[in-house]
């Protein structure tokens, strides 16, 4: 039950620190949206270069839970699709691999937004 929990804490914590430094140390107004977009893109690029896989091996959820992990999933799916189905696979593979996450986010996000009301 506690396998990988400490590595997940450390790797996940460090990835979040990178995001915090990006917000605190850059002069321009970097909003959370900018951080999330750059983290997804960074995950895709690192995944494409094969540099993110080792991080997942070491950190487990520490590497997959941050949004870089979402980018990694997209890139991994696109590459797997490309190797089995060529260009069509390159188009479909990423979304296929990330489908559960995207569907869950839309479903749960919608339901919560319908059921709850804004505070104040």
């Amino acid at each position, binding site marked *: 039950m506690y396998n990988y929990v400490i590595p997940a804490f450390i790797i996940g914590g460090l990835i979040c620190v990178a995001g915090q430094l990006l917000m605190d140390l850059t002069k321009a107004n970097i909003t959370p949206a900018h951080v999330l977009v750059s983290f997804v893109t960074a995950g895709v690029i690192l995944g494409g270069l094969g540099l993110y896989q080792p991080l997942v091996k070491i950190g487990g959820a520490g590497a997959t839970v941050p949004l870089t992990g979402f980018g990694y999933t997209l890139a991994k799916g696109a590459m797997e699709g490309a190797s089995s189905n060529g260009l069509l696979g390159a188009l479909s593979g990423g979304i296929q691999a990330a489908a559960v996450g995207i569907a869950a986010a839309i479903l749960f996000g919608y339901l919560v*937004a319908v059921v709850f009301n804004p505070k104040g």
Partner: protein
Amino acid sequence: MPNSNLRPPTINVTPEEYKQMTEKISPKPTLVKNTIMAFLVGGFICSIGQMIINFYVMYLGLAQASAQIAGTATLILVGALLTGLGVYDEVVKVGGAGAIVPVTGFANSMVSPALEFKREGYVFGVGGKLFTVAGPILVYGIVSSIIVGIVSVLLK
């Protein structure tokens, strides 16, 4: 002359001195504190995610890959619910990027504007604002992953 009733300034400070004075009493740079809190909160959320994955593997008999996907979906549900309850915004205040970068923060970035603009209706309010932040994330993530896929086709 109404202006003659105005009280003359009681302290003699130049704008420069005033700037120094305000710098002295305003809060110190919180860079170190922010970094530590981001590490702790982000690490905590990821280790919860790992425990959820481990639970799915051990007690539901899911394969590692499926457990990981199910774990991510579970965290999205938790992040969305906590946002609806108004709890997650407090977590973001404490943890900064530690709460924004994990997938729970992604869920928060969808629900938060959707709730805020709910009064604009269910189409443009809820339906549209769900993608205020998630839209750009999906656009950049999907476009860059397709490029990665095409490059890997070309390199084959």
